[in-house]
């Protein structure tokens, strides 16, 4: 089922169409939220919220205007993550121990690579969330700057700045496996 058919189907209340949308995007969305938050359980909850909102909101969108599912879904997912942080009333820099899911669930890699990935995720979680969002969208999800700007509703210049600062911050926090 192609995307425009799926959206039309969803507008008509067709659950199969919605299932198709989940199939098309759930992996990307949960991966994005997992890398953004460093917490798999949280990523699951936020993914659920994202798709529930899709189910409720897409049928209400203007059928005459072009609806682009991918940026819309990522924008909703990002907003869900931001709302989560706002409810916590603080923007986290790091929370050690968040990533135990990585070490327990992936037993295929040599120990060295697991340790390296823990450090990368931890370093990423230390970075301010607005920069982290752009880093994950660009490097993990493959979004170009223009796409990130459209998804988040910010300028391309702002994206460039956030990515640059995010990379600089990452470099400082990442120690290649050694705890700072």
């Amino acid at each position, binding site marked *: 089922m192609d995307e425009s058919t799926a959206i039309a189907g969803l507008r008509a209340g067709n659950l199969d169409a919605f299932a198709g949308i989940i199939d098309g995007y759930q992996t990307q969305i949960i991966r994005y939220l997992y890398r953004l938050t460093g917490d798999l359980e949280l990523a699951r909850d936020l993914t659920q919220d994202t798709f529930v909102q899709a*189910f409720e909101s897409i049928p209400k969108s203007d059928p005459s205007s072009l609806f682009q599912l991918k940026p819309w879904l990522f924008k909703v997912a990002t907003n869900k993550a931001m*709302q989560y942080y706002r409810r916590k009333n603080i*923007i986290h820099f790091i929370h050690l121990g968040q990533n135990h899911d990585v070490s327990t669930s992936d037993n295929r890699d040599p120990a060295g690579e697991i340790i390296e990935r823990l450090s*990368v995720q931890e370093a*990423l979680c230390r970075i*301010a969330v*607005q920069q982290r969002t752009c880093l994950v969208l660009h490097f993990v999800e493959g979004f170009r700057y223009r796409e990130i700007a459209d998804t988040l509703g910010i300028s391309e210049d702002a994206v*460039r700045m956030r990515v640059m600062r995010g990379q600089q*911050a990452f470099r400082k926090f990442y120690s290649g496996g050694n705890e700072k």
Partner: protein
Amino acid sequence: MNHKDIEKLLSAYANKELNEEQTDLVEKHLASCVNCRESLKQFVESGQQIMALKETPSLPDMKASIMSGIIMRDVKPRPRKLARVALVAVPVAVIGVCLLILQLTGFFMSPAQIIEKAFAASQEIKTYYTFHETKMTTNYQYDNGNTYSRESLSSTEISYDGSERYHMLINSSTTDIASRIELISFDGQIYYYHDMRNLNSAIQESIPDYVTEDDIRMLVESANKMFAADNIENTVSVDKMLNSLTDIKNLGDEVLNGVKCFHYQGTLDKEKIIAQNEKDLIENSDSLSQKMKDSLQTLIDFFRNPENEIQYEYELWISKDKYLILRIEGIQNISSTLNLPTGNIMIEGSGVITATYRYNEPVIIQAPLTPDGELLDGWHIYNKPEDN
């Protein structure tokens, strides 16, 4: 394009996000700049490291749980109440200027009809009381990787009795310091009080009082502006809740303290706030003090600076019978970088604000005087600048 400009493009160059012209400029510069070549190498490396996160452990299949959640829920849209809403942290002295605004989308009636009703209602206001509280958490991140976090709490309480009497009390505190500023306007005379207290017993020396006469003057200006005899309706009316908000959603009616209210959510439109404050600066140029003008300009510059990231979201409750704002809840998120000669500090602030409003209830304002007419301890008489 100079060296600093090129430095700002290196990350985008490493990520292949520059256009042809920019790429040429960067490559020409790189040919002769060792430092930039080294920086580029670091950007390339960090990009590759983060890209490794594309690999994930096996992720759960969410389809079944999402679908069962959809099928079982009542899919009729219900108002989603944010746990918190964001609100801008403006300098206290510009609260009166930045009372926030809502552009009604007129789900049930046109904006023009609502504004007309709101204006009519605000003419009936005699007394006014508001209590605002802001809780902020600010995180500082230094170049060397160190971080520091600070929490602060401030509250503003304002009472106005419908004549020229008003009372404003501002309390603010961090973990170390608490300050109080108070103003009373009573029968043509303005009185003020301020103090600063050390809350940290580890600090022995006394804290200098940072509140200056200019600060007091600015507060008096704000208060006078809010409560000038012919201006109260501008202070409180919903229609002045201008179109500073965008993405406005009607969350459905809600009962607040027994009063049926419209309930709206919106995001601050920065361009509109800038335009509003610029207009204020121009129109009131003759009557504003220099400090107030500087304060407004600082706010405008802060909003204008593309390197600052500002996101404010609000929820408002507006009474359906009187079209008056009864409550605001807000969340603000701000990111900014302070560039100092010693290095950069990245600042991230997150604040929660709640504000409640009451109208036409009895308000009693008293002058801060003993029965003998002497000033109470710590209080002073405010002298207008032309009186000095």
